[in-house]
């Protein structure tokens, strides 16, 4: 089943003054359960592509459909709801809520979804267990290592049972050991939870783990390799 479909997707910054084409005519289809890496040099348009797929940025041209629904036609409020219920975000610098514990950070997204307490409790503990950080669940982000914080971030992204997870350079701030560990866990989640992952990265370790690698250059897809 196709989760994400882009057609002639285009993004031009400063179209009126000095146009900069960030994404140029990208056609892309991501199937459910994929573990995809979008790679390419800095400035090739990886983040812009992910932002448009995530409904955070408006395309200059073309369309983005998620689960068959075109998101370009949605209002800001609809997009907010859409992101909450369909997309999990993992950020480079974790972006956890510093005043909440690891458990609360994971539970928070389900509170936004208005899930009942029993479900939240079960899902939170379950995911934290799978992510291997249940023992640290009552710690605040500042009391966790970078690797642990990113695991909490992945747990948070998974908690809302999204259609797919967008991860923008998720390993950029992690050391080798933490990167390996995080990638193993994400691969495991991909397998066990059937979670669809799309990374933007230029980290070879991430690329090596990916099942599909899409390479961008100057905003265009220059290769799309399934492994």
């Amino acid at each position, binding site marked *: 089943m196709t989760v994400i479909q882009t057609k002639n997707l285009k993004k031009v910054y400063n179209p009126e003054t000095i146009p900069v084409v960030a994404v140029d005519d990208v056609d892309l289809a991501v199937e459910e359960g994929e573990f995809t890496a979008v790679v390419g040099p800095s400035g090739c348009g990886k*983040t812009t592509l992910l*932002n448009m797929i995530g409904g955070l940025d408006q395309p200059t041209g073309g369309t983005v459909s998620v689960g068959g629904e075109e998101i370009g036609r949605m209002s800001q*409020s609809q997009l*907010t709801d859409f992101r*909450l219920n369909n997309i999990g975000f993992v950020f480079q610098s974790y*972006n956890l809520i510093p005043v909440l514990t690891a458990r609360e950070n994971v539970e*928070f997204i389900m509170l936004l*979804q208005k899930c009942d307490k029993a479900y939240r409790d079960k899902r939170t503990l379950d995911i934290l267990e799978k992510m291997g950080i249940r023992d640290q669940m009552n710690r605040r982000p500042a009391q966790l290592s970078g690797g642990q914080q990113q695991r909490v971030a992945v747990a948070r992204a998974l908690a809302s049972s999204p259609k797919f997870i967008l991860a923008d350079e998720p390993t950029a701030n992690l050391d080798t050991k933490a990167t390996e560990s995080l990638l193993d866990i994400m691969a495991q989640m991909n397998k066990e939870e059937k979670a669809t992952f799309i990374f933007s990265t230029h980290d070879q370790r991430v690329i090596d783990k990916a099942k599909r690698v899409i390479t961008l250059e100057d905003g265009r897809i220059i290769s799309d390799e399934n492994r």
Partner: protein
Amino acid sequence: MIFTLSWKNIWRSKRRSFVVIGAIVLGVWSLIFIIAFYNSFGAAFTRNAINHEHSHIQVHNSDYITEPDLKYQLKDVDVMKVALDSLSSIKSISARQKINGMIASTKTSAGVQIYGVNEQAESITTGLEDQLVEGTYFSKIRRNPILISRKLADKLKVKIRSKVVLTFQDIEANITSASFRVEGIFDSKSPKINEGVIYVRQSDLNRLVNDKGIHELAILLNEGAEIDEMKVFVSSITDNTVRTYKEIAPEFNLMEESSVMTKRILTVIIMLALLFGIVNTMLMAVLERTKEIGMLRSVGMKKRSVFSMVVMETCLMGLMAGPLGLLLGFLTISWLSDRGMDLSMYADALKEYGYDAIFYPEMDVVTYPSLMIIVILTAFIGAIYPAIKAISLNPLEAIRKI
């Protein structure tokens, strides 16, 4: 969820939160103090005016009010006194004969209002005896004793036992003069009485004007008695004009209105200062969390939830600080209302306006909840701009900052 997040956000920067809470506490405390201090001014002025000048209710012949002539006397005084004497809410009644005249010493003369009074009744009604600073109270001089104020005594350059001459018209409009001897010098808390009222025995004045008519009935009520109800009752038993102290002296209403206005203005000023403090601090708190708020919006937090979070954060601080400020204010006022605030250094100036040198700050209990509402409202208004700033953030900005 919003509540939990807001509550935890408050303690994210303890120092900043304590500054906001402290500012609100201080604002509420100072507001209570100022209101209570203003109330004490008004209360002192009213208390002195009632206890030493007007009493609670006065009864006059309606013509006497427009033209204070000797012939416009009260009707059915005895009937009124009998009806009123039995009422427990009345502390005392002073029936006065009032004549305008001149007082002359060997040095100078002055226009005065002569009060012919029953010594005992006047003493209870206005505390005249207690206001004596020199001499005695209608007890040592047998023939025509007179009590004059310290101010008038200084003006006439007379002292105890000095002779003064009173000149006035009798009931037939004949000019009458009689010599009186100063038996006592008083210092009233009423500037008007100090200025030009003298007291003589009613029996002496009756004899000199050839009439026993009464011009004024001053009624002092016991504490807690309903003035308006009593006015209605007195009006029902007489054809004379019955007025409360507020109707007699319009300055009471003026003072009350200006006091209310002043308190409102001060409240607005203090709350405005507080408002700017809150806006500034909350704006800082929001701008420091740009990235986090952007992330919250990115992952699906609605604008109204972000707005509520910032507003609730501020209101929670108001809810913590408000009662603290109220308690502090209440304790300060309770302490001062027992001991009083001694402003003796301004005693002379205050006396000129009919005030004592010691003030007893007071505030109605019902004012406290109103202040709490004002504080919460101020916190709410103060949170609006930072909250708008928070929801105006583009979630993408947060992503780009990663």
